[in-house]
């Protein structure tokens, strides 16, 4: 199993003719992802890495049976790209692009939630099910197939945690970047629900950071619903109030959203917290290793 994507997932890349689109289409192919085509308006008929390019997502779906898309277009065009993928009935939409206006996402969100599509991101590393499929920009080779599921608000921090797990012989069922923005298509609970039902996932790691209350809400949910062990890491212990720490969502404002609050919420709800990525990996290992 694994969640969201697997060996059968058929992927297109929106923005495939751009520098990053081409590079990551190639990287995903190398990893073994079934990339079946790409979309760039006005470039119909071209080829990238031997893959056909289409004008519209709907055309690409008709020709290739794609059921997932990776969006790698500039931010001003990303909301459009999401709407288009939704309209074409794509099951899994992974929006890598960062820098979407929050108000644009506040309109996308209710529509995507009412649709048949699942949106991951924006501002995400993507999703990987090690050994099966990756839709995203993460380095594939640091991952190992296994039984730990990850849901994270941060890309490179997840790589650090994955590397620490893999070095200790702990593989991952899937790793999902939910995205670093204040409004993302799928939250921690959406992903936790999938891990709960996934027979290949025996433990879950939540990688959170300062800002908002998603971690606290997820902790409540975990206590009420999750029997599998859950581990947590929170970035931003040293962050000052009122400063945005890179991600649009990572900001402590009005004394809310501190690392301390989140760590306390995790610990109070039975989630084991690692103070740093190594300690986290050690805790996971001693529980399930």
């Amino acid at each position: 199993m694994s969640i969201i994507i697997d060996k059968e997932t058929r992927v297109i890349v929106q923005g495939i003719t751009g520098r990053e689109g081409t590079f990551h289409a190639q990287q995903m192919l190398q990893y073994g992802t079934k990339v079946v085509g790409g979309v760039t308006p006005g470039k119909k008929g071209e080829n990238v890495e031997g893959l056909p390019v289409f004008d519209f997502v709907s055309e690409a779906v008709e020709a290739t049976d794609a059921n997932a898309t990776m969006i790698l277009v500039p931010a001003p065009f990303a909301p459009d790209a999401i709407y288009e993928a939704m309209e074409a009935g794509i099951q899994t939409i992974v929006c890598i692009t960062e820098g979407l206006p929050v108000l644009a996402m506040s309109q996308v969100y209710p529509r995507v939630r009412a649709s048949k599509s699942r949106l991951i991101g924006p501002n995400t590393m993507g999703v990987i099910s090690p050994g099966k499929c990756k839709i995203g920009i993460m380095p594939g080779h640091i991952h190992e197939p296994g039984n730990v599921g990850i849901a994270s608000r941060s890309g490179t921090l997840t790589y650090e945690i994955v590397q620490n797990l893999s070095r200790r012989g702990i593989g991952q069922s899937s790793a999902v970047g939910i995205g670093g923005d204040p409004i993302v298509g799928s939250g921690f609970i959406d992903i936790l629900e999938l891990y709960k039902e996934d027979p290949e996932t025996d433990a879950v790691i939540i990688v959170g950071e300062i800002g908002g209350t998603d971690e606290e809400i997820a902790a409540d949910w975990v206590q009420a619903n999750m029997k599998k062990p859950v581990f947590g890491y929170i970035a931003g212990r040293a962050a000052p109030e009122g400063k945005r720490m890179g991600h649009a969502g990572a900001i402590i404002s009005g004394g809310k959203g501190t690392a301390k609050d989140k760590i306390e919420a995790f610990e109070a709800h039975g989630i084991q917290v690692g103070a740093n990525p190594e300690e986290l990996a050690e805790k996971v290992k001693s529980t399930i290793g």
Partner: protein
Amino acid sequence: MCFSLDNGARMGEIDGFAFPNESLDEPREVEMKLYEYQAMELFARSGIPTPFSRVASSPEEARQLTAEVGKKVVIKAQVHMGGRGKAGGVKLAETPDEAEKAAEAILGMQIKGLTVHKVLVAEAIDIKNEIYLSVTIDRVSKRPIVMASAAGGVEIEQIAAETPEKIIKYIVDPIAGLRSFEARKVTAQLFENQKAVGKAANLLVNLYHLFINGDCSLVEINPLVLDADGNVIAADGKVDIDDNALYRQPELLKYREAIDEDPNEVRARELGLNYVSLDGDIGCIVNGAGLAMATVDWIQLFGGSPANFLDLGGSSSVAKMVRALDIILGNPKVKTVLVNILAGITRCDDIANGILEARKQIQSDKPIVLRLAGTNEEAAQALLEGTDIQITPSMREGVQTAVEIAKSK
């Protein structure tokens, strides 16, 4: 990952589609808070009643503006910080003479470490009632939310802590927008007088439009005042703009003023880097916001003191690395630099070349601790062979080494 449009291009002018060009050489916006005087100007343009209010940079200017008003005025320090009243940054003045003196006292004043460079000269209002009113994004419902309270005049956090039952919250459908009847439902809970309810509802609809049309992350009026003549007036204003939306708000860019920001942060922003000043002596350069936060946290866990948060962003270039080192090494507090790169989309050889290039361009004997892993790692190792820069095998060892160096100096 961040993409930028071609220089100055607007959506409509681009032929078909713009493609990711990964050029991060353009300034990257970090945040954009408006000063009160700028917010008042936007309010006035948006049909939100405001008292006469103009900005002054000198006591003489404050005097002239007060003479123009011909009434009692309030002189208010313009800083991005709460608590200016307590710090003596707000003074009443009956006459132009008094206004000049008040401005003289306030200009140049330090409020929580920020120097006051401008004051607002605002007509004093005869206040009957103080209301709190704001629109922001509610991260839980992921929708715009109107917040209001009849207990205005103090910070919303204080109202929330002391009298949470006095905060009215109204979540708005982002597609339908805030309708007039909805605005009335909110303002009917704030005023007894029907005329005031209607006036405040109009004002709230206009405030919501400003929030949406200006791509704001916050619009706040505190206090919203009912004066003795029955007028509903915004006596103070706070507006934060979503920096991600500035590409479609070109007219708001003119409001960007960096007069009270940290100089290193301003410089980093101009150079396209994501930088936050901290107080310590270990400079940090990291790829990715989460890993950058984790690096700063780990330094503290080991008893060290980070000098900054710096996220290189989703791509790498030699030039960007040189600029980052230039800013960090230019900070006199910094004793050592920890470069922590776990490369996915970043390329390790770019980082290595950047460090070598910076060594040539920047005079500094501060040691650089380098953790470098991921994409093109081998190429980076080859570049660094024979130099004094060693790659530490893990993040923990990198952090430990940097903390030890900083302590020994």
